[in-house]
């Protein structure tokens, strides 16, 4: 498939967004939602952190979705993130082989989230990053941000988004905790507020 252009005239008014509320827990999280990487894949990275509100308090009912490319920068086309069991109607989990690139997890009672996925490759002029989408009670419209992986300073210095946000770029770059683990806190408001994005 090939992109031949972006959207033309937008004639139909959109459906407004609403908060995910506090009670999605029996519906949206699914088994292995955070285990995006195929089992034992050598390019696996662990990303994790806290979601914090404007008082610096952890947000225990946030939902974090990640979406990213393969290590070679290509976009996954595989389905199967939330495979269902036709016999029981429950979740089977991923098959541990295919990489869908997408996952979902909820923060725990400490406001902590995590995921294991494949190290994203660079696309276009961008340094490697994972697309992040945050939902929470109290958040009337979800928030997009990006989790950039540290390491390649040349690529980070040339990144079109990071070069635009000045001192706030550090909120978009995860901390290397060694052994392929990266810390990325999401601050919804206040000091050190994460850079959030809107797409046009």
């Amino acid at each position: 498939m090939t992109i031949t252009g972006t959207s033309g005239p937008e004639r139909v008014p959109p459906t407004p967004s609403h908060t995910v509320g506090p009670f999605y827990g029996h519906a949206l999280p699914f088994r292995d939602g955070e285990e995006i990487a195929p089992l034992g894949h050598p390019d696996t990275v662990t990303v994790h952190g806290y979601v914090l509100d404007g008082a610096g308090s952890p947000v225990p009912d946030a939902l974090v979705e990640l979406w990213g490319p393969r290590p070679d920068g290509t976009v996954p086309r595989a389905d199967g993130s939330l495979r269902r069991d036709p016999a029981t109607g429950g979740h089977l989990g991923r098959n541990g082989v295919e990489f869908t690139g997408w996952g979902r997890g909820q923060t725990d009672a400490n406001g902590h989230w995590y995921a294991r996925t494949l190290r994203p490759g660079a696309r276009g002029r961008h340094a490697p990053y994972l697309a992040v989408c945050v939902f929470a009670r109290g958040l009337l419209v979800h928030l997009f941000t990006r989790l950039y992986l540290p390491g390649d300073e040349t690529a980070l210095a040339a990144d079109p988004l990071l070069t635009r946000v000045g001192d706030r770029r550090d909120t978009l770059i995860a901390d290397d905790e060694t052994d392929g683990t990266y810390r990325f806190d999401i601050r919804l408001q206040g000091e050190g507020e994460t850079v959030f994005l809107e797409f046009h």
Partner: protein
Amino acid sequence: MPAPMPLTQQDIDQEIAAEHAAYVKRVADGAPVEHHPRRDYAPYRSSLLRHPEQPLVAIDTREDPELVELHSPAFGERDIAEADNDLTRQHTGQPIGERITVSGRLLDRRGRPVRGQLIEIWQANSAGRYAHRREQHDAPLDPNFTGAGRTLTDADGRYRFTTIRPGPYPWRNHVGAWRPAHIHFSVFGTAFTQRLVTQMYFPADPLFPHDPILQSVTDDAARQRLVAAYDHSLSVPEFSLGYRFDVVLDGPAATWTEEGR
């Protein structure tokens, strides 16, 4: 210091009216129509500490067609079990309540159908209680109703759920706060930029003017788009009442052409 007076419905109604008047004035002064809520909508108290104060950083996707956000995760038949779109058949017995059929189309802003994408729904039972442990509302649980479903849109972007009509329920935004009956929707488009989570309401609910979550959509026409329409052609004789709810995704999307097919 004396304890603050508890917030009443009247207080919240006044705040809602003030936010609405401010929006009407902004538009009269030439500001654009706001299709979505503002994230800092004080009548919904949970928004106070959970909205960014810095402006969002705008990304012009036309300059950068390589963005991974212009693609969407894929979902397929193996992600859906047979009873996933019939919330009345997920247990051994029938749930209590008024059976409804909810159907509509998933479209982008050019009116094109979004095919083969995932729609997830969740809701309270007919008594207004969620099957969620943190739920504190003292209404009965229904052992035959979980209230979660999912489906894929078809070639016309159409989806269909069978469920029961959810009840309204109290919450703790202010004294006497009640949510109008609603079904939560989570939807994917052809691009991750189009991701949407929203709520569908039922026609003519008397709680509408008092609900700060629905009223956070300050534009009257936009708010109306969250209300399903009764559609007799969707009603199933001697089984269910039909409601139509079309979902239109916002946000830029790439235009795709299939190669080699």
